[in-house]
């Protein structure tokens, strides 16, 4: 036992299936008694990570310890964890009592004690007197309560919850969220909760782990994740946000939308390309356009219950999302202000595309599985490995995948106020990042064309 503070330690876990890598070198430690949520879009690897903890899948590489013992290859029935499944997974051949008593009977617990513990578990989930009911006669919410009781009655060290509320309606989901939080406090055991619902994650968790594409993007408390997202993906996934391309002029001064803004971030260097995130509720909107930092025209205004949600177009072609308690009619000229502390600067993950390829001859290079024409390359031998760089805006996408030189599928769309930043994944798993003004949809198949003069080829030193 290296550190008794951590109940789960995941070290460099990789899980690959024949056709794809689902988890890519993931490391994570979970503190004893913590409510930890793994949050991410579908297909990000969050459920796989949970299944590795439960033991339903085994990792391709890496090590998992639970309660100080290495559990990487231990089968599920020998692990000190219990799981609550998304679709309840109650045994239809047993009634409520026998479902909950299932684990205790296997442990050969004394019959009287079983009865007491089942009753206590039922009371905990608010289902007293349901012992003899047929599980299939229960509503979705009741079934999930029984499933939770069935898991906690075994007093596991860790309770794993795989999107347990996803199948319930909104009202029931809200109620159950509160109950889960209370239950976590009362039981004092570690909860590892998987969800794609960012609001749920922010409400419930002590710690949130944001995942995407099999990698952990950020680990932090709900406030950290919301206020200090570490990259554009996290900023976009958690809450609403305006994400814009910007240049850090020097410490505490950032330039975006062709204007300079004071901020509080330091240490990015001078004239560095960065992303800025501004939450819609942090943009102040006023009628007096002269006193403002920048101006715009209200395009739409929708009442959202507590606040109004407005989209404002600036004269330079940017679209800013704003939430405010006051409403402004569409067409109104308005002024806007942003406090230095509300501008959050993030390092860019990349500023151009870099793809490894092979030089075919002096005017052709093989990248993305196809031969692309390029400007004449000198001083590199044909057949040599090369790095091919090109700007995000140099890529042209076509509706018909066959019209492009290569093709790919749109995997991620990020709106940057005046343009879309797309991630296009090719058949071979290469990612091409594209800036475009055209509207595409997630999972569209597109052709990829790059103008020969845009490709910058450099040799890779072996």
């Amino acid at each position: 036992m290296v550190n008794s503070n951590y109940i789960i330690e995941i070290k460099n876990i990789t899980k690959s299936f024949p056709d794809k890598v689902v988890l890519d070198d993931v490391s994570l430690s979970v503190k004893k008694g913590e409510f930890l949520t793994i949050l991410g879009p579908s297909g990000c690897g969050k459920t796989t990570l949970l299944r590795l903890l439960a033991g339903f899948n085994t990792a391709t590489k890496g090590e998992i310890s639970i309660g100080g013992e290495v559990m990487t290859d231990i089968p599920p029935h020998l692990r000190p964890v219990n799981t609550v499944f998304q679709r309840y997974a109650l045994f239809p051949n047993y009634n409520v009592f026998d479902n909950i008593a299932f684990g205790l009977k296997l442990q050969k617990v004394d019959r009287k004690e079983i009865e007491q513990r089942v009753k206590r578990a039922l009371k905990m989930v608010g289902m007293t007197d349901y012992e003899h009911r047929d599980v299939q006669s229960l509503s979705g919410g009741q079934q999930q309560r029984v499933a939770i009781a069935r898991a906690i009655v075994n007093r596991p060290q860790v309770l794993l919850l795989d999107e347990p509320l996803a199948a319930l309606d909104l009202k029931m989901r809200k109620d159950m969220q509160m109950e889960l939080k209370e239950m976590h406090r009362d039981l004092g055991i570690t909860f590892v909760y998987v969800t794609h619902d960012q609001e749920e994650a922010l409400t419930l968790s002590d710690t949130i782990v944001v995942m995407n594409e099999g990698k952990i993007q950020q680990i932090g408390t709900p406030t950290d994740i919301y206020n200090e997202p570490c990259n554009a993906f996290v900023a976009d996934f958690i809450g609403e946000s305006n994400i814009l391309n910007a240049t850090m002029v020097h410490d505490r001064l950032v330039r975006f939308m062709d204007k300079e803004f004071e901020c509080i971030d330091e240490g990015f260097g001078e004239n560095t390309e960065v992303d800025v995130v501004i939450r819609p509720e942090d943009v102040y909107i006023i009628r007096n356009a002269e006193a403002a930092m920048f101006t715009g025209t209200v395009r739409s205004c929708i009442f959202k219950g507590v606040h109004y949600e407005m989209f404002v177009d600036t004269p330079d072609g940017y679209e800013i999302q704003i939430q405010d308690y006051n409403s402004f009619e569409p067409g109104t000229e308005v002024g806007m202000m942003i406090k230095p502390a509300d501008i959050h600067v993030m390092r860019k993950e990349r500023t151009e595309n870099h793809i490894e390829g092979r030089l075919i001859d002096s005017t052709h290079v093989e990248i993305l599985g196809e031969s692309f024409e390029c400007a004449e390359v000198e001083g590199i031998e044909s057949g040599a490995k090369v790095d091919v760089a090109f700007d995000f805006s140099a890529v042209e996408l076509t509706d018909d995948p066959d019209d492009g030189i290569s093709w790919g599928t749109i995997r991620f769309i990020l709106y940057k106020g005046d343009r879309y930043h797309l991630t296009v994944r090719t058949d071979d798993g290469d990612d091409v990042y594209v800036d475009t003004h055209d509207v595409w949809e997630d999972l569209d198949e597109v052709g990829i064309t790059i103008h020969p003069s845009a490709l910058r080829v450099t040799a890779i030193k072996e």
Partner: protein
Amino acid sequence: MKLFSRRRNLALPYAIFLGIMVVVPMLLIIIYAFMGKGGGFSLENFERFINQPEAANTFIYSIGIALITTIICIVLGYPAAYILSRLNASLAKVVVLLFIIPMWVNVLVRTLATVALFDFMSLPLGEGALIFGMVYNFLPFMVYPIYNVLQKMDHSLIEAAEDLGATPRQVFLRVVFPLSTPGIVSGIMMVFMPTISTFAIAELLTMNNIKLFGTTIQENINNGMWEYGAALSFIMLIIIGITSLFTDSSDENAANEGLL
């Protein structure tokens, strides 16, 4: 013509077919069964069944053979279905097809081929050959419904059981097997009942040495004893009816779940 304008009228052709080919013959069976030698109502056919041990013995023997066949089918079929359900989908499809292809060949052709096979291997025809032939013919009807239920079973139930501490053996005994009983029940209905009334397989595979109940009925009717044959058919129908009632009540959705 408004005949086909209402949707339920489309069922008319089949309803007529059903009436002529199923309902009328059943009524005829009942009428003949309760008809005396000289015509008119009588119970003499049933008295004869009780008093003449030959037919009753054949009847009991047939049930015995059907039971043995069914049990062998379960013992052979369940593991096969279980393994099939665990194969990946494309491979399972191929194997299921291999199970089904022999069913495309007429039962008489298959049975004659079995006779030829026994001849070729110089194995004696008789009771053993009979049971072999029955199992060979009916096994797919046991495998398929069980496979169907197992294959549709929610995999998270198995994971839930493992998660709660069940060893692979306990998972099978406490979850998988109990939940697959509807498939077994359907399998029994599709094997046990038809085997009671088979006669072609018995005739061919025992050189007519062993009589099953189906054979007795057929002989009586062939020999012009329609009333007695009808009474025997009636008794068999009642027995089959009772077993199907019994299996139905054991699980209300049994038959539906097991078949496709």
